[in-house]
């Protein structure tokens, strides 16, 4: 049993015209203490919706199916009643743009103390002291608890947002694009902090981002999402050096590398609409190696190696899925 088990999660959004958008289509993954996992994909692939589902924070027009088990208990079973005790306390989240979401009229310390008091983790002076310790943990002097967000730089605000997410000593931290608006140097500082938290506190980290190099540097493994599904997941090294889904390979090929000499190629076309049924493989129209079967039959995610799964028919044809990178 893993610390957090996400099993076949589906999310549908009701659209104003009465139709439904199938945003997340059967996503499953596990994570253990100290693990660092990336959840990557283009915008609209369902990565943020997936972790909002785990947090039980989906909007009212969403329908949810599947299980999220924390220490074996399905926390989605009783809706809000069963999620609430775990939210922030066991599973916490850094929202995209969190640095801009701090309350401008409350001191940073007050904002860190708030969740502690709500969840009876600490109160009064003890909570205030804990807030100072959390700030130190993320690299801000403890005395800054009395300061307001506008007195902080962007990087410091992001650190404060991380301190807030850690207020109730969670076991799982979901970080949604935690460095997207930051400069590379500040990004490096924040990523170093997140890796340190996973290593030192045994925090299970799920890093949601569109930025493959960031995941490559921070995470041991990753799940690549496309059109609401995980199309490949496995150890980071294998995803880069021996991808088993063309989307993973093309996504890396579309990302310029500092020292890479090879041509950077964009992926033609756009992801499919999720408010209608998709026949065959959702990536088939953009794929550079699709064949007849891909048009009619959707591939299932299945094992292609040790802790390495992919959803591609090419893996059924021996030897075809090997890539240029693997050969070299």
């Amino acid at each position, binding site marked *: 049993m893993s610390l957090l088990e996400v099993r076949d999660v589906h999310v549908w959004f009701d659209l104003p015209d009465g139709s439904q958008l199938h945003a997340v289509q059967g996503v499953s993954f596990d994570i253990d203490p100290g693990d660092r996992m990336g959840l990557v994909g283009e915008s609209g692939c369902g990565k943020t919706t997936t972790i909002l589902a785990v947090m039980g924070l989906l909007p009212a027009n969403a329908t949810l199916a599947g299980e999220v088990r924390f220490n074996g208990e399905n926390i989605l079973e009783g809706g809000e009643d069963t999620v609430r005790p775990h939210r922030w306390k066991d599973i916490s989240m850094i929202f995209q743009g969190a640095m801009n979401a701090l309350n401008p009229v409350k001191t940073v310390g007050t904002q860190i103390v708030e969740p502690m008091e709500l969840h009876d983790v600490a109160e009064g002076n003890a909570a205030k002291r804990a807030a100072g310790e959390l700030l130190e943990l993320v690299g801000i002097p403890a005395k800054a608890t009395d300061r307001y967000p506008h007195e902080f730089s962007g990087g410091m605000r992001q650190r404060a947002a991380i301190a807030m997410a850690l207020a109730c000593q969670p076991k799982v931290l979901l970080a949604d694009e935690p460095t997207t608006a930051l400069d*590379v140097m500040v990004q490096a500082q924040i990523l170093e902090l997140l890796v340190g938290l996973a290593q030192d506190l045994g925090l299970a980290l799920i890093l949601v981002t569109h930025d493959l190099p960031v995941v490559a540097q921070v995470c041991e493994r990753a799940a690549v999402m496309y059109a609401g599904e995980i199309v490949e997941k496995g150890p980071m090294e294998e995803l880069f050096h021996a991808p088993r889904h063309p989307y993973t390979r093309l996504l890396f090929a579309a990302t310029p590398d500092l020292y890479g000499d090879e041509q*950077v190629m964009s992926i033609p076309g756009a992801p499919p609409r999720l408010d209608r049924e998709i026949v065959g493989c959702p990536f088939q129209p953009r794929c550079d190696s699709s064949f007849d079967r891909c048009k009619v039959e959707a591939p299932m995610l299945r094992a292609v190696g040790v802790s390495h799964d992919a959803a591609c028919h090419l893996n059924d044809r021996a030897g075809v899925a090997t890539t240029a990178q693997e050969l070299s």
Partner: protein
Amino acid sequence: MSREEQSGVETPAEGTGRVGAGGDGGPADGGAATGITGAGTGTDAAIAEGGGGTAGAETATATVEAPGTAPDGTKAPLLEVRNLVTKYAIHRGLVGTIRRKPQQWVSAVDGVSFTLDRGEMVALVGESGCGKTSTAQTMLRMVDAVSGSILVNGQDITTLEHKEMRPLRRQIQMIYQDPYESLDPRFRVGQTIEEPMLIHGVGKDDNERHEIIVRALLRAELTPPELYIDRYPHELSGGQRQRAAIAASLVLDPELLVADEPVSMLDVSVRAGILTLLDGLRRTGKMGIVMITHDLSTAAHFADRIAVMYLGRIVEQGPAKQVVRNPQHPYTKALLSVVPKRDPRDRTVPQILQGETPNPINVPPGCRFHPRCPVAEPRCRTIDPELHVVAAAEPEHEAACILV
């Protein structure tokens, strides 16, 4: 100095955010144009009075001579930026003004020099606040330079009046970061592309303009053009919007294209396409591109030369591959070390600089990088290093550090 003048200095910093920077005085850009005019008078008046005026006065004499000595454009590089300085006045507020609180200045661009030829792409890279966007805005005369010169085809445009600038604006076009905001949502793609032509009187009738629009769409690879010409921006994806913005900048046949973070708002899967498009445009040999980016990997891949900026200065510049593979300045080295690499096996130990870029109001004395520099020596606190060639083997590769 009156309050109007002051506010004039402060407004233009934000730029106009519209496609086709050529539209000063045009129907949609009226507000921006007045902002720029205001900036001119404001800055001049302020410099005469303000503390930062000395540098301005010195170089002012230099620029007066420039028009006479300017060569005829045949051999001059497309763009030559010399010792460019741009400052913004800090708002003192009503109380501050009445109390005669001393005027403070932000030196956004503090002595930047570089050249660009036709067919070339130079990337200005650096963290936010390093002055890369201010450099571009000064080049487009959205804000006025305090001193220094910007020569386009040998002609100094730094001191031109707005009327004189107007024909030149055809030659210099800009592509903005956010295609979700830079396109007018009420304009069809065809109208967006037509607007700069109407402002500059390109094309004698609708038919000719239509032909030019179709050609521009083809060059921007929005094919077939009929499919896009009557669409509204909201019907397009991010990548298609950015292509429409590029098409609008191409109808005037600019020689100089300034692309400010052209792909940072776009999805990874379409970025390469936009960058390859820009790469192809300058490879025709008729156009030079200044690309502003914070992404060193993109710069290394697509630019011929990279100029690394820190606190308003270029601290290192040279051929892209040399700067990336053989960095000389400690700042460049640190910056490169924190760029995430695609290959998980390439995990290097990032050399993380503590803190963030200092405020350009109080630029540190001596080398401006010394407070964060891992190898700074005592003399770095007093000597302000100049760009110089660092190795005989790489004659075009310069760094501003006394230790190299």
